[in-house]
């Protein structure tokens, strides 16, 4: 399927989801759905670097928070419409992704991951000490109660995140099937052999960190309007880093569908657990599922079925 056709299909699915929510008429559906979709974007973004090129990024929260705090800073100066804020968040985090890539991509394996973790800690310290965006006290962002046409504000936010998810998935799928996707795969498999085949590995890794960082920032930009109150400890929360790694791992990292399946599955389980048990149990669920998948299906749901299919077809 061509990318344009795929985009139309995804848009149709998204429209159906939105229409279903609208007729359901429940604010909770949109409120919980927003979080799930936010994780769809974060997991897809993480997977572009972590799944396609094999560089494990522990700093998702840093890029997410950069998008969120860009919004807070702009809100204090002059409130802009959310789509513009998403673009700004994307640019800020994209630049940060490029910079991080430039500084750290000569490191391989665990060393790269530790450097990304350090980035999150450094940025959190900076934000805690930055009084303009509220420092450790946090900042209140008051969105309007209603918007034109749609009426309900949470529906508007949901629609924005839905659009972002569709665009992120379409971009990930397009990358996967392009020359870039082949290049990323060779980096994951063997960087020395990739260079010997003419793949400019450093440049491709920078492209991956930039795209991945930008998408994470875009997911973070509307967050202050969604949550209403932003403070460093939760915006840089462990849950973002853990979830955005766990979701692609559970779904399968080599294809765009993996993070989507993982995020929807894990996201919904977490939302249900938040309502029925407690929100503190979320990370426990992630941990148990991760362990289970590492044992039963190390290549995630997609990999599990691909292997079955391969074995079944005798090849």
């Amino acid at each position, binding site marked *: 399927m061509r990318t344009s056709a795929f985009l139309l299909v995804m848009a149709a699915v998204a429209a159906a989801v939105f229409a279903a929510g609208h007729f359901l008429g429940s604010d909770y559906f949109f409120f919980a759905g927003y979080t799930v979709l936010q994780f769809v974007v974060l997991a897809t973004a993480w997977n572009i670097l972590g799944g396609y090129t094999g560089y494990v990024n522990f700093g998702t929260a840093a890029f997410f928070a950069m998008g969120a705090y860009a919004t807070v800073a702009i809100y204090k100066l002059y409130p802009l419409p959310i789509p513009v804020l998403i673009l700004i968040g994307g640019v800020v985090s994209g630049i940060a992704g490029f910079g991080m890539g430039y500084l750290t991509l000569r490191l391989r394996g665990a060393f790269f991951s530790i450097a990304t973790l350090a980035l999150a800690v450094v940025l959190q310290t900076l934000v805690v000490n930055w009084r303009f965006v509220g420092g450790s006290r946090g900042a209140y962002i008051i969105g309007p109660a209603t918007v034109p046409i749609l009426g309900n504000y949470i529906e508007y936010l949901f629609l924005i995140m839905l659009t972002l998810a569709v665009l992120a998935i379409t971009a990930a799928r397009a990358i996967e099937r392009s020359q870039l996707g082949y290049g990323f795969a060779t980096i994951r498999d063997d960087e020395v052999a990739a*260079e010997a085949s003419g*793949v*400019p590995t450093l440049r491709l890794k920078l492209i991956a960190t930039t795209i991945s960082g930008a998408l994470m920032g875009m997911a973070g930009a509307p967050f202050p309007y969604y949550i209403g109150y932003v403070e460093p400890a939760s915006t840089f929360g462990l849950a973002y880093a853990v979830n955005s790694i766990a979701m692609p791992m559970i779904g399968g990292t080599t294809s765009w569908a993996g993070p989507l399946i993982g995020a929807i599955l894990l996201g919904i389980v977490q939302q249900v657990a938040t309502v029925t048990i407690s929100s503190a149990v979320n990370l426990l669920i992630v941990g148990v599922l991760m362990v289970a998948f590492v044992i039963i299906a190390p290549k995630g749901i997609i990999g599990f079925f691909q292997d079955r299919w391969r074995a079944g077809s005798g090849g």
Partner: protein
Amino acid sequence: MTDLLEIGGLSKRFGGFVALDGIDLAVKKGERLGLIGPNGSGKSTLVNCICGTLHNEAGSVKFDGKSLAGMTAHQRTRLGLARSFQLPRPFMSLSVADNLRVPLLYTVHAREGRKFTHAEMEDHCGEFLRLVGLADKAKKLPRDLSMVEMRKLELARAMAAEPKLLIADEAMAGLSHVEVDDILALLVRLNERGITIILIEHIMRAVMAFSQRVAVLVSGKKIADGGPQEVMRNPEVERAYLGQ
């Protein structure tokens, strides 16, 4: 004939260990050079320095009249230098055909400044796979291949970059008599197409049959360079291989 590859005073150390010590070597366009030496004599290190996988501390490498100093490995590949690895390093998550697609996409595209159509791409991949006899395994993953097939894939991937100079680093180790002949015939065919080839090999039968000229490395120094028969009669080479 002009020199395609000129190496002058090339040295490489690993800490206190001198792996290569002032190597001079020239390879003419269209030549078939055999490079031999005992294990640990620096053959693979030399290949790594030529191809940019390692950086040499001293000396120069010129390819096709251009100095390669400061060039990354992928830039050298695009200039027309291709190598196979001693231990096959296929892209494990890509199919056999897709393994060949990588140098086509990233080297041949970049060099010619045009994109292949889908059909041209398939043709090219198919051609190289037929050449090494892997046509029926195109859709398999490398892990489903035997060691021999993996070595053939390694060679095919180097060939797919359409190089001017191909360095085959022990492409025949562990192969049977017939398989060695297969690969030799393949390399000769490539050479007839005008590709210069450096063959690094321990199988003397192959080296003697293939090479127009043989260079011998011992402990990071080049001790002999000349016609195969003449080099084999060299007392220093005999000493290095057989001891005194």
